[in-house]
């Protein structure tokens, strides 16, 4: 389904860019562990944090749209492709070292994504339906 592919891509890209921007901004804001809401609200005035939050709102709405027709057990693994993008972006844009264990992690995630992406977004309980039919 084309709309499943489009919304999956939107979920992945908005999540990766949103988290990157948010983390960048929080580095500038500094240490923040508080039960009071005010330090968090103050952090939102950092432009990187604000941009990150906007992208995460896009992420939330596109993920909710995808969930309106696709199973949660499909959406979650498939949209984890974002972790791979984030790691590769770190490698190619920020020139971070990627250890052997991390490459292995990237490989496992890509295998998991490919496997789940091959299943129907909304799996029909075929076995149960035929069992119910036989019972009738």
């Amino acid at each position, binding site marked *: 389904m084309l709309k499943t592919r489009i919304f999956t891509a939107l979920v992945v890209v908005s999540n990766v860019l949103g*988290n990157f921007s*948010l*983390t960048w901004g*929080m580095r500038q*804001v*500094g*240490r*923040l*562990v*508080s039960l009071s809401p005010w330090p*968090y609200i103050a*952090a939102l005035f950092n432009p990187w944090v604000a941009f990150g939050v906007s992208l*995460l709102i896009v992420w*939330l709405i596109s*993920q*909710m*749209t995808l*969930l*309106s*027709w696709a*199973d*949660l*057990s*499909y*959406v*979650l*693994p498939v949209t*984890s492709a974002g*972790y791979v993008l*984030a*790691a590769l972006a770190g490698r190619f844009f920020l020139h971070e070292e990627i*250890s052997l*264990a*991390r490459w*292995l*992690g*990237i*490989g*496992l*995630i*890509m*295998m*998991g*994504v*490919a*496997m*789940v992406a*091959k*299943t129907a977004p909304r*799996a*029909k*309980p*075929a*076995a*149960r339906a035929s069992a119910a039919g036989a019972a009738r």
Partner: protein
Amino acid sequence: MRWALVAVIVAATTVGDVLKAKGMKAHGEIHEFGLGAFGRLLSVLARNKLIIASVLCMAISFFTFMALVSIADLSFAVPATAVTYVFETILARYILKEHISWVRWTGAYLVACGVALLAR
């Protein structure tokens, strides 16, 4: 402190995602993608109790994640929350009654292991 924050994030994310999936299934498949349809969608969702509860959980998860990345590296924060893939697949099976084939179980497990390995 770091692990306490991780526990809060994992619990809030898992509950929030299950409520979100349940709420969106109750709403039904979205077919229209225009600006007007988008406005109507938001006003309908704002009255969906499951979605409201889900947004509250996600807000808790989000602000806790902000606190976590302010005291720990992203390379600790992200892999530490990988276990949500396994929890959520189990809850999708038993609460959302999704049909999860062995291909999906294996896929979810590979993703969780892969995310955990990204820590190194």
